[in-house]
């Protein structure tokens, strides 16, 4: 039940996240788009859990835990970059290259 609409919403959210990551230049926005993709995946897990057992729901908790850790580390990096360069625009952050 509701599997198909749920997956559709999940797919749309994921695609939005990807597009956001690809197209935006602000590091914070990109970061939020990554979160969006994680939650799109979570939605798909929950939707499948209805038919395939409780494992999908358990997985969601793992993803949330990882996302929390990622948020902590990622925001800390962004903050550090901002302090250093006074910007979070990725076009200006390109010192690491071959």
């Amino acid at each position, binding site marked *: 039940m509701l599997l198909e609409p749920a997956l559709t919403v999940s797919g749309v959210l994921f695609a939005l996240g*990807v597009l956001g*990551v*690809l197209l935006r*230049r602000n590091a914070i926005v990109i970061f939020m788009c990554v979160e969006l993709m994680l939650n799109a995946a979570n939605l798909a897990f929950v939707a499948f859990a209805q038919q395939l057992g409780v494992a999908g729901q358990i997985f969601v908790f793992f993803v949330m835990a990882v996302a929390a850790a990622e948020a902590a580390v990622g925001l800390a990096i962004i903050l550090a970059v901002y302090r250093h360069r006074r910007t979070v625009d*990725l*076009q200006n*952050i*390109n*010192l*690491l*290259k*071959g």
Partner: protein
Amino acid sequence: MALPPLTLLWVVPALPLAGFVVNGALAFVAPGAKRAVSLVGVGVLVLAFAAAALAVLELAQLHAAAPLVVRYWDWLPVGDLQVAFALQLDQLSAVMILVVTGVGALIHLFSVGYMHDDAGYARYFAYLNLFVFFMLTLVLGASFPVMFVGWEGVGLCSYLLIGFWFTEKINADAGKKAFIVNRIGDFGFLVAMMLIFWHTGSLDFMTVFPKATTTFAAGGPVVTAITLFLFLGCTGKSAQIPLYVWLPDAMQGPTPVSALIHAATMVTAGVYLVARCGALFALAPVGSATVAGVGALTALFAATIALKQWDIKRVLAYSTVSQLGYMFLGVGTGAYAAGIFHLTTHAFFKALLFLGSGSVIHAMHRAYHATHAHDDAQDMRNMGGLARYMPWTATLMWIATLAIAGIPPLAGFFSKDEILGAAFARGAAQPAWYVFWGMGLAAALLTAFYMTRLMLYTFHGPNRTGDREREQLHEAPPLMTAPLVVLGVLTLLGGALNIPLLFGGGARLEHWLAPVTDVGVAPAAEASPATEWALVVSAVLVAVLGLVAALRLLKPETLVPARLAPPERGLGRLLWNKWYVDELYDAIVVRPVMWLSREVLWKVVDVRVVDGLLVNGTAAASRAVGWVGSRLQTGEVGVYVVLFVVGVIAVVGAVVR
């Protein structure tokens, strides 16, 4: 006796090896400890001789018809190839170990005096001991690979000792020449060894030889190839045509080394090998004829060169090549006992001649050293009349000269006569041997001539050393003359080992060697006593003729010292230049190889291909790939993300489909 027979045979080679280890250590730790070095160096040889004598006595008591093989450990267990490290004592190796340790001990003793003032004293004795170890491994080995270890080992020691005074380039070059020329021969040995394994499935003497008659067709191509390759090995080690060129140059080493390695023992390894493989040579008439023919040719050829050499050691070197030719004529004829007999007597009288020349050179060198002159201490033109100053050496060397010339009843007479007799007897069946016999006889004439020439120019006539130097000429110390005296006695009496039936002797050595040399071939028809007497008389006449001719024709009074001597002319110049064989080899082998190495292998293969294409090419290719990779690292996070997404889509697409 509680132990099984000959369990302690390993002691014989182990003693010189221990001497090498101790002396080698002393050479690093305490090079000045000459007393300890002499004690160890000579002591192990004397003990080894005693051990060898005990082993041979035991062998004699057992009356063994088959060789006694003592296995020590498995050496090369590789598939079908099973080689054990095993030593074998039979009548043939018994003779060899007695000669090696006996003559070796005397020469070691002589070296104590001869090398006494040398800075490399400990190193010298270490090498000498190591040589004896390898030589004993060579003659005691019970299979081809074990023998090959000794074969290579003596080559190594020969190289080390020829170039013993390596600070002079000429000495180092002589060592290198010996080593490289021997490699060619060793290649033949290896090929023969592989052929033998290929066809008989074994490399042990005791397996191969009994199988030989059933495995190989008599006179077939395989056994002929094997014998010819084996003989190639012999020509290298035993200095026969075409590989004899290294031996005269080997005289750059210390004189006792020339006596031990390049006269008495190592160079006879080839004769030993042919005698050892008698079962194979008996099946290959072409191989045997080659051995005998090359032997006869070498005997004659080297004797002609010896006629016109001025360096006393070089005369003896060519004489050695020539006498080795006799031995090969003997073993190639199938007269193994005669060949080994000549090997033994030659070890006595040639060692005596070399040590005598060593004692002459020692005296000359000291005389020149005392007056700071730079004349050649080995050139006979600088000697003359030395008999007045060195009566012992002169007398003993005259004995050896008469022996090598073949004057009865000295040792060389019996052995040389036996070889010539055997060759003549074989001529009845194969006329080629008449030619070989004739060459041998001619070589005997030349031998008597050049040896008498050597003695005349060295010990008789007026002295040409120089007025101030003359007062410094003295006989060598007793430590050096004592071994000479022992060798002199052996030279006088050595013939008694094997007095042929013709003279009412027992041919004892021949009977002793019979279990080994009896390889299932009927000996050539015995010549009638009348023929034999005729042969003996002709041989003696030829020897006397050579002697008398030299005494009558050569005028030591007319000689001038080397630095005043005019250049040679005509045939003498040709002989003095050794028939230009070295120059010929230089032109057809050495120079092309050098050119190939320099112009092709170095400048093209090494510089262009190896260094340019492979080494630098690999580096350039890595750098290019790295450059392409580094272009992807733009530093733009957006680009990374795009690539990442494209990659994920590709992976997911691949998995889903």
